């Protein structure tokens, strides 16, 4: 399928906006529940950055679509099958180690992506990426340090962290999956082919896993479907909570 640049921009921005929004929401679920106060503040700070990125991407998506949908309309009035986030980020928090491993796998990808998008000839994409890059560099330092601390920690923390890595690994393939939108933008030189991020991502993950004394799982069968709107059941519950207020009071404004 070939699509025009505006449609591709819409699809691409939606993928990044939805992925940021869903992960930001997942992290916000830790507010008041993290294992220590500083970490409670850190996770919610990162959530705030991610929701900020989501606002920028969804605004850009709305402009590219040209149907008058703004960031709020896109965030709050779409159901599961219209969401284009990676399946990785909708996975439930489970324990702290699981949350941190999920975060690291995502952060290591987002740093590579934003470094490349920051030099995109599309000013809208480059502007968001340059802004986000400064923030995700802090995120990946933070999540990588925790992976190392937990992996190279006690027997229990190591076992939980390894378990999280094994469970989440089959969700990592989707980050490098092309779709019609990314292919059109890659062909136009506006965004990288998602597959091009894999080598740098894998190298960073391997380094951190080694320092954490964790075993990097073998690449096998990978979950896919998020880019087509085929999600796990978890996303529906997340959206039900996130969208409750604007669904119940559709015209409410601050």
């Amino acid at each position, binding site marked *: 399928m070939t699509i025009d640049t505006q449609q591709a921009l819409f699809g691409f921005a939606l993928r990044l906006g939805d992925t940021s929004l869903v992960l*930001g929401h997942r992290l916000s679920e830790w507010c008041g529940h993290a294992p220590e106060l*500083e*970490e409670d*503040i*850190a996770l919610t*700070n*990162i*959530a*705030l*950055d*991610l*929701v*900020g*990125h989501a*606002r*920028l991407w969804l605004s850009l998506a709305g402009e590219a679509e040209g149907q008058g949908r703004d960031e709020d309309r896109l965030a709050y009035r779409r159901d599961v099958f219209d969401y284009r986030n990676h399946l990785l980020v909708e996975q439930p928090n489970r324990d702290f180690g699981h949350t941190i491993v999920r975060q690291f796998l995502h952060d290591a990808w987002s740093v590579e992506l934003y470094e490349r998008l*920051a*030099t995109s000839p599309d*000013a809208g994409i*480059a*502007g*968001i990426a*340059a*802004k*986000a*890059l*400064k*923030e995700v*560099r*802090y995120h990946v*330092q*933070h999540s990588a340090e925790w992976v190392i601390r937990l992996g190279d920690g006690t027997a229990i923390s190591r076992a939980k962290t390894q378990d999280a890595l094994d469970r989440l690994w089959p969700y990592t393939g989707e980050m490098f999956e092309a779709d019609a939108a990314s292919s059109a933008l890659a062909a136009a030189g506006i965004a990288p082919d998602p597959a091009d991020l894999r080598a740098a991502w894998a190298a960073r993950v391997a380094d951190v896993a080694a320092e954490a004394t964790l075993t990097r799982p073998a690449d096998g069968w990978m979950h896919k479907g998020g880019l087509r709107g085929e999600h796990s059941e978890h996303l529906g519950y997340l959206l039900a909570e996130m969208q409750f207020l604007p669904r119940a009071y559709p015209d409410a404004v601050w």
Partner: protein
Amino acid sequence: MAHAEQAGGANAGCWGPEPGADPRVLTAWAALAGVMDPEIPVLSVVDLGIVRSVVRDDDGGGDGGGDGRLAVTVTVTPTYSGCPATGVIVLEVETALARAGLDATVRVVIAPPWTTDWISETGRAKLAEVGIVPPPAAGKRALTAPQEAIACPLCGSTDTAQISRFGSTACKALHRCNACLEPFDVFKCH
């Protein structure tokens, strides 16, 4: 890494009116110097370097007409993408300029991205006065090089440690002094 340098480098100070600026623009900058950041209320939005530009609008056009107020457009930039203070800042800028007799249109732009290099010297001094360690002034080295020893703002000891990279607001990290045992905020290099 080239993009990390684009906003730093030779740009040593904050933004401000150009020499010989229009009186209306000067009035606006003076009013903006009184608008405090809601989360770090010792810093004005000008000290923080988030006011990018002020330009005079045509009196006949825009939404400035009718009530005799003079129109300007103020361009501001958020510190962090998700900074919850941005909406409040826009409102406070509009209010302060209205008090100065100006009708402001406030634009929010994200590119080029804000950097702590845009915090003014006055701003750095004000941060230090209230016990918040100002960010390193020279470029982006702190993001890539090992952190230099940070002196405790209370007792001056350099025997300090980072407790958390993420502090009470998005732009600050939390540190602790091993000498006097007090925690303190550090403005992150960004």
